[in-house]
């Protein structure tokens, strides 16, 4: 699982906060282009090309909004390339529609539209890619200006005209790249601080955890084992009954230890949450005979923990209904989680979407179905780790 240095992948929840700007750009850019197209309609040589440019831009905007959804994360380099290409193609078509009649570059909608699309990608792609996209777009804009040079009503030198035309793209792309880089740097600083504090928590906290675990074991031993050993030590002779008792106790404690070893972190998590929310039954809620839950990476376990806690905390969730099946196929593990949540989808999604967005980052093929009241999650992860 490779996490890129983007806000969406390093802080999925912050990307959710920024999502409405995607809608703004998705709706605003085609609207802006349409208005300018209308205002400059006297410059249009080919209405077909003009309409075509607006159509391509609108499609690009719709695709952008669709592909940046938290539940389709991550927004990949390929998706960005599609958006950039759509913006560039729409600009080229618009310029072609005014090929011999474009008087001023300043009122062309293409470069600002491309610049706004690139700027809106700031939360989804790394700074270098954004800067590169801006550079590519600037080159295209300059080439288009060069192609239109004959029709432009200006006595300015070419470099000034090109500067005016390319300025919106360059400025917006540059700003977006800086924004992405600064966010990443801030996340990196915080991540390093958090790693150090977690280490301190673990190191300093490991003593009390060790004492807690030791106390649990000693309590278990005090029930029968230690009294048995003391009686054996005190007795003058070892007899058959004591040998039998030793064998029984060995089997019993071995069974307890095996059961504890087989109980995964996921078993413990679901059991604890179910108990905390009114289902005290001690039962296997995770069907994972091969211990595949342990194959999840730390990030995946964290996301899973946060989601499970949120799921059980939902007032409409039936704690008795939550279960999970993990199986192995090919070279990865498949997980299926089910829960009954008796509430309308909009309220369930509203409560769980942030956690699903985080899950989606660490399980890229996460698939979520909700047919009231059944909530189903399907995802795959990891390679089977050899436990021989």
């Amino acid at each position, binding site marked *: 699982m490779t996490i890129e240095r983007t806000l969406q*992948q*390093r*802080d*999925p929840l*912050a990307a*959710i*906060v920024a999502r*409405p700007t995607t*809608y*703004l750009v998705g709706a605003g850019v085609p609207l*802006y282009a349409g208005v300018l197209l209308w205002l400059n309609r006297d410059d249009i040589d080919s209405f077909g090309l003009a309409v075509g440019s607006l159509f391509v831009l609108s499609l690009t905007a719709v695709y952008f909004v669709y592909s940046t959804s938290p539940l389709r994360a991550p927004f990949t380099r390929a998706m960005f390339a599609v958006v950039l290409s759509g913006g560039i193609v729409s600009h080229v078509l618009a310029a072609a529609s005014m090929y011999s009649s474009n008087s001023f570059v300043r009122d062309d909608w293409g470069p600002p539209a491309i610049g*706004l699309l690139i700027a809106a990608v*700031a939360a989804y792609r790394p700074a270098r890619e954004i800067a590169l996209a801006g550079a590519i777009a600037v080159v295209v804009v300059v080439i288009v200006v060069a192609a239109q040079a004959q029709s432009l009503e200006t006595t*300015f*030198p070419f*470099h000034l005209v090109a500067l*005016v035309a390319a*300025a919106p793209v360059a*400025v*917006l792309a*540059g*700003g*977006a790249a800086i*924004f992405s880089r*600064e966010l990443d740097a*801030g*996340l990196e600083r*915080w*991540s390093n601080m*958090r790693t150090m504090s*977690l280490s301190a928590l*673990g190191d300093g*906290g*490991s*003593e009390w*955890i060790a004492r*807690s*675990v*030791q106390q649990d074991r*000693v309590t278990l*031993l005090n029930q029968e084992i*230690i009294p048995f050993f003391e009686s*054996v*030590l005190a007795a003058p*002779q*070892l007899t058959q009954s*004591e*040998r*039998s008792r030793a064998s029984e*106790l060995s089997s019993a*404690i071995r069974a307890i230890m095996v059961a504890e*070893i087989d109980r995964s*972190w996921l078993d413990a998590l679901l059991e604890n949450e179910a108990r905390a929310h009114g289902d005290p039954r001690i039962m296997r809620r995770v069907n994972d005979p091969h211990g595949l839950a342990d194959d999840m990476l730390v990030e995946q376990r*964290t996301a899973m*923990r*946060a989601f499970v806690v949120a799921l059980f905390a939902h007032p409409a969730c039936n704690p008795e209904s939550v279960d999970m099946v993990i199986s192995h196929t090919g070279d990865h593990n498949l997980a299926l989680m089910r829960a009954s949540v008796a509430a309308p989808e909009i309220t369930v999604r509203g409560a769980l979407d*942030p956690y699903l967005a*985080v899950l989606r980052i*660490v399980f890229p093929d996460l698939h979520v179905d909700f047919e009231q009241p059944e909530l189903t999650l399907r995802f795959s992860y990891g390679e089977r780790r050899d436990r*021989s």
Partner: protein
Amino acid sequence: MSLGLPVHLAPFGTARAAARAMHTMALSSIAIALVCIVTLQALLPDRILWPAALAMVPMAVGVIIVDRFPSTLTTVAYLLIGAACVYWYVLVGTAEYPGADRTDSFIIAAAKVALILVGGVGSGVVSAAGWAIAGYLLAEGATILAASQTGSHIAFDGLSAATVAVIVASSVVIGVNRFRTRAAKPSVHRAARDEHLSHVRHRMEIKAAAMLHDTVLNHLAALSLAPDGSLPPSLRSQITADLQLLVGQEWLVDDDSTPDDAVLASWQSSNLAAVVNESVQRGLRVEVSGDRAALASVSAERSSALALAVKQCLVNVAKHAGVDSAEVVVHGSPGELSVMVVDAGSGFDVTKTEADRLGLRHSVFTRIEAVGGSVQLWSSPGNGTSVLIRVPSQSRESLDARSATTGGSA
């Protein structure tokens, strides 16, 4: 995956990044305005346009100061000085350059946009939108004032208006949408903490399981096989000692601060030597060879885990191999200590035998993996058994610590 900034820091982080971006865009706009003026001056040498370029210098300096020293004072100072610069810029530009006869021309808009992109201090919606609106009003006011003096046509500037509209709209939607993750963020951070603690606890439970296997289960197994009569003295003393350890001492808490120089200073006082001696007392002949001094290169926790793993290997030799001798070879290499336990006994088919599920698995494999090491096992029927145990040594820990502080993220 980073979990992102916590709820109380996220707005500041985002605001700081946005401010930096706006300052970059402002400097770009100023640079564009400068290039335009310089180019026009070169094209029109009889016009006196260069004073307009001078107005851009204080603006550029002001942006840099606001970026480096963000505060209300520097932001207000930049707005006021910037407004004065825009006034001067528009005054000279509209007076000297015939093409700038409207206040919505690109050359003028570039300077105004630099003022709108003030990126002022503050993290909320009100501050972000407020500074942008203030910049817009001051820029337009200065432009109108200058244009009215030179008789230029005062026109609505769509570029400046669009710039402030985008900033205000973005700030509002982001500010309003923050509530969606207000509860989720702390939950995700709590989950990370709980996962970390769970991992630490799991390590402790592995150690506890291994310890109970090595003591309680072994003693119960020995008792179940002991003949009638008095308890063998060695078994009696071991049970007594282990009971005192389990009940009376903190056997899970390690002093993990060193390589434990005091204990490992010599072979005879090492954990591994104690384990070998114990096996010898049980009747197994153990030949130790190799670089015993390398034992000093591992931490106390790893030394302890290594010794206990070797102990289990030697117990397996005594129980299953059908021979009464084994060899322990110690080898130190840069960053790693390896110990191999070899016997020429009956061996077993590793693919078919679930060889002492708790014994090998927890007393050897899981115990060593828990301290960052690895175990390899070779055996086949009739050909003996070899177990290679590797653990990182102190020189590799130093390298790992250095690389963790210079890069990567959680």
